[in-house]
């Protein structure tokens, strides 16, 4: 085997070093970086900011008074996702969603909003609701008819003493390709996460408060 000259040895060393460096660069450029996968869900007040969630900043909502919020979610899952935002009406005794056991609230669903979202896409829409009819029996108040974004919704289950401490719960559900159905929250690898929000209010008959 012929012995390499000093210049030859130097050239071979440089060539091998350059191969290693450029191969690493090529691998990094063609391999997508793993990123944290999550969703973001938010509710904003009528000004589109995290303020003024009630008309005149008064959480006592009389029937016929429209309340305007902005509901939004952003997909940071790194892929196309099919999401549902379930809107539920609860009171102080109905359980909230469970972050530890990933169980949704047992409160009745008033309405749900579905959409397919691209990666990094934010879906924001106005959420305007009005209590259309309130039933009051022996200090127990129940908003029996609501209107959400122009859709009439009935409620026959949720009532509260003196109309205090109702809450609108927003739950984020995603389509799970494995079970071919919706699951509360989402899966990232072996992990499970959930996201939900709630806003409290008091339902008042006109002239009650």
């Amino acid at each position, binding site marked *: 085997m012929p012995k390499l000259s000093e210049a030859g040895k130097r050239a071979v060393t440089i060539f091998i070093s350059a191969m290693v460096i450029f191969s690493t660069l090529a691998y990094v450029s063609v391999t997508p970086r793993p990123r944290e996968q999550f969703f973001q869900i938010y509710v904003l007040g009528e000004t589109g900011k995290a303020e003024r969630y009630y008309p005149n900043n008064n959480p006592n909502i009389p029937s016929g008074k429209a309340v305007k919020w902005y509901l939004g979610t952003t997909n940071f899952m790194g892929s196309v996702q099919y999401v549902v935002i379930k809107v539920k009406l609860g009171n102080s005794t109905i359980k909230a969603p469970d972050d530890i056991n990933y169980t949704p609230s047992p409160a009745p669903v008033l309405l749900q909003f579905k959409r397919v979202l*691209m990666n990094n896409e934010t879906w924001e829409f106005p959420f305007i609701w009005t209590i259309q009819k309130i039933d009051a029996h022996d200090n127990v108040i129940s908003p029996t008819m609501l209107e959400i974004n122009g859709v009439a919704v009935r409620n026959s289950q949720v009532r509260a003493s003196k109309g205090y401490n109702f809450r609108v719960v927003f739950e984020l559900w995603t389509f799970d390709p494995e079970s071919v159905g919706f699951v509360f929250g989402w899966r990232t690898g072996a992990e499970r996460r959930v996201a939900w929000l709630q806003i409290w209010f008091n339902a008042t008959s006109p002239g009650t408060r």
Partner: protein
Amino acid sequence: MQDRSIRLWAMLAAVMLALMVPTFSCTRPRVVFSFSTLSGSSQAIDRANVEFARALAAAREAEAAGADEDQLLVLIEKLNLAVWMIDRAESLLLQGDTAAAAAQADRSIEVSKGVVLEAVRLRDEASLRTYYGKVFAFGMVPVASLLVTVGTHYGWKWWRRREIDRTMRMEIKGVREPMEET
């Protein structure tokens, strides 16, 4: 005793009558037609949901293969249209308009099938593009390494020559000591 048997017979007859009325009403053609229509539109909605799930999976595959974002956006818009149609079909079914519900579900199926075809085309194109991209990236590695090696070699030679020339051009200059003051 006879009274009791009459009562028993009367009860039995009432039970028989109660069983016969729904059976008879179920065999009436109008009711049978209505039931089958309801079932038919419900099946159409189920098919629409299955087809939608396939379309969503196809869109995800296209995205994973590296499909162009603008083209993917068109698919997502179509998927959202299919979602809206399925929702509409379900609400029409609840209102009892079975024919319109079935028609809406069928339109959703068409949209979803279109999405599947388009997504498969996008996925294949993207896969090919990604493959060529990888081949180019790794194919450029030895070329770039060779260029760096040749460049370094000639750079080294030039620098060496320059250094030698600089050394050769050096002159010995005497440093004149300052005159001692006497």
